């Protein structure tokens, strides 16, 4: 996911400023990606307080490790969401709450306002984000249901392919093929929308 093109300051600039101990850079990164990071954390852990704690820790890790981030080896948002997802999955594993998460997965936070409400992104950023979201939803919609299910179980519940096979009572080879083909389809469909994707 490239940094919003409507913004003069790139994500790389913000990471460099964070590495130079400029706290406002983290504020701007939060404005750009805080909602996405929160959505991932919430989808995984299913509780507002837990998800917000994970968001705080994810940005704190970016603050601590900004100096080590190599701009060009991957996007900032990929790094941020990877940290948040990883922390959220660790949290859920430690709490052994996977069964509850499954039912929460498809639901919106009942306490939350409408999507993007009160969000600080600039209008152009918000429009871009919204368009990308539609593209992602369309790309997910073009997967077969078993492919989408396998990928979601891996991404949002942190299950390995063996665990997915066990959960779905499907042969492991079938699950591996679904993950591989599904991810390839997503990559082909979404390539124009992420950094270095040639779009």
């Amino acid at each position, binding site marked *: 996911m490239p940094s919003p093109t409507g913004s003069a300051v790139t994500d790389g600039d913000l990471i460099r400023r964070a590495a130079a101990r400029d706290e406002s850079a983290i504020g701007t990164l939060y404005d750009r990606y805080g909602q996405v990071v929160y*959505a991932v954390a919430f989808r995984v852990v299913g509780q507002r307080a837990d998800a917000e704690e994970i968001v705080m820790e994810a940005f*704190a890790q970016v603050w601590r490790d900004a100096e080590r981030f190599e701009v060009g080896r991957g996007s900032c948002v990929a790094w941020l969401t990877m940290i948040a997802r990883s922390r959220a999955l660790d949290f859920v594993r430690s709490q052994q709450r996977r069964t509850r998460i499954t039912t929460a997965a498809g639901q919106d936070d009942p306490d939350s306002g409408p999507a993007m409400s009160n969000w600080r992104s600039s209008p152009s950023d918000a429009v871009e984000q919204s368009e990308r979201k539609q593209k992602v939803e369309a790309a997910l919609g073009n997967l077969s249901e078993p492919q989408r299910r396998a990928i979601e179980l891996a991404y949002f519940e942190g299950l390995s392919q063996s665990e997915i096979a066990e959960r779905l009572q499907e042969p492991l080879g079938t699950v591996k093929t679904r993950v591989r083909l599904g991810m390839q389809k997503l990559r082909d469909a979404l390539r124009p929308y992420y950094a270095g994707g040639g779009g």
Partner: protein
Amino acid sequence: MSEPRMSPSDLAAAYALGALDPAEAVAFERLLADSAELQREVAEYREVNALLALGAGNATPSVGLRARVLQRIAGAPVVSIDAGRRAAPPTGLWLALAASLVAALGLGLTVMSQRRDINARDAALAGMQTQLVASESQLAAREATLNAILDPGVQLNNLTSTNNPEPRIQLFYNPAKRSAIVHAFHLKPTGPGRAYQLWFIPKGGKPIPSVVFNSEPDGHALVQKIDVPAGLELTNAAITEEPSSGSAQPTSAVLLVGPMQKS
């Protein structure tokens, strides 16, 4: 029925998703270290993962979360997560209002204030619960390490530097499980883009590349579940500094070396 055979490239997506089984992931990482093409594929799938986050739903955080994030990075104590705004108190224009109305308003403000306190306490409690879970998880990991080290079959090999007494590495090697743990201390972190790499040196053979790691700012490093090559008589283990993606053969001088006990 046998599984379809997959090429390393076919595994990149599952690896980026974290969906490979541990043994597969270790094997894939060995290939990944030497393949720019695989590294590019994994990086690309990680970008896809970031976009998948957009499909995570519309849940929206509290308005106060931004301020708490900034407080967290500034090291300041976390305070209220209040999402509402305090209503403006009545001004002199409202002095003519009946005393009962003022009392009712006062009561309302008190309730809001108490609710704010409760929210703050809930947030603090949630933070403590998260810390507790993290501590428990850390404790469990340490216990697992201790159990691995205390296994009766484990051999302790010391890797030392020839020209500097400071950095030192303990290599706990379990021949029965062909598994090792590296514990380093006084080992200065490498510069950007560089890392330490462990090598196993077989009798009469070339060094065999193993894990790539780095030390914490305090000079400590702990690397666990290191696979040790089977079917070879390993005479030494050594550490060199390499690019952070690792090398297929040493590209710099040996920093630490030590003999491995015969299994």
